[in-house]
């Protein structure tokens, strides 16, 4: 998959669990988990919602992998 993310790190900084983040943006905990393990690429809307929770631009959380 051509994308990586720093969701786990950002969550650790903000000190919230997967379940709490999931509830904040209205998705299942499974979705947060699969995003963190790079198994699922979120839609733009979801990425923007996540970025809003962490108060950072999307590019700081989601990055294209080299060579893409």
């Amino acid at each position, binding site marked *: 998959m051509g994308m990586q993310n720093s969701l786990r790190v950002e969550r650790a900084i903000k000190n919230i669990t997967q379940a709490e983040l999931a509830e904040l943006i209205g998705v*299942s905990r499974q*979705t947060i988990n699969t995003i963190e393990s790079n198994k699922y690429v979120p839609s733009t809307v979801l990425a923007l919602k996540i970025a809003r929770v962490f108060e950072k631009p999307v590019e700081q959380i989601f990055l294209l992998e080299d060579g893409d």
Partner: protein
Amino acid sequence: MKPQFLFPTWCRWLGLALFLVHLPVILIFKSYDLHSDPNDAGMFSVSHVFFVVTIVLMVSGLFLIAFSRERIEDEQIYQLRLSSLRWAIFANYAILIVCLVFTNSKADYKDLLRLNLWVPLVFFIVLFSYKMFRLNRSLSKEDGYAK
């Protein structure tokens, strides 16, 4: 995400109940051998009513199981639903084409219709449940690491 049209979550159990109810009805039908009467061909004949009752119970049951809402619906689950549906349609048409090729004109097309009624729904339910199971298992693995 825009809300999709799906039945409420409890409809899954209603669907399961309807599906389970149709099994004894079929057994009664088969054990009394009701459709062997050749004079019994009207719209409200015993065999036709039984056929309709079993088919309606089965299809509406499967339909409710297939299209009831998960506890939390999000875009990933929507994607899983869509890909399961695609494979179910592929499987259905593959089976349908094979059946059409390997049956001659004397075949009872009611059987083909019956097959066509449940194959897409059953394939969809099995695939989607398997995908949901794998998704949930990835979560319990994660919990295992965290401990």
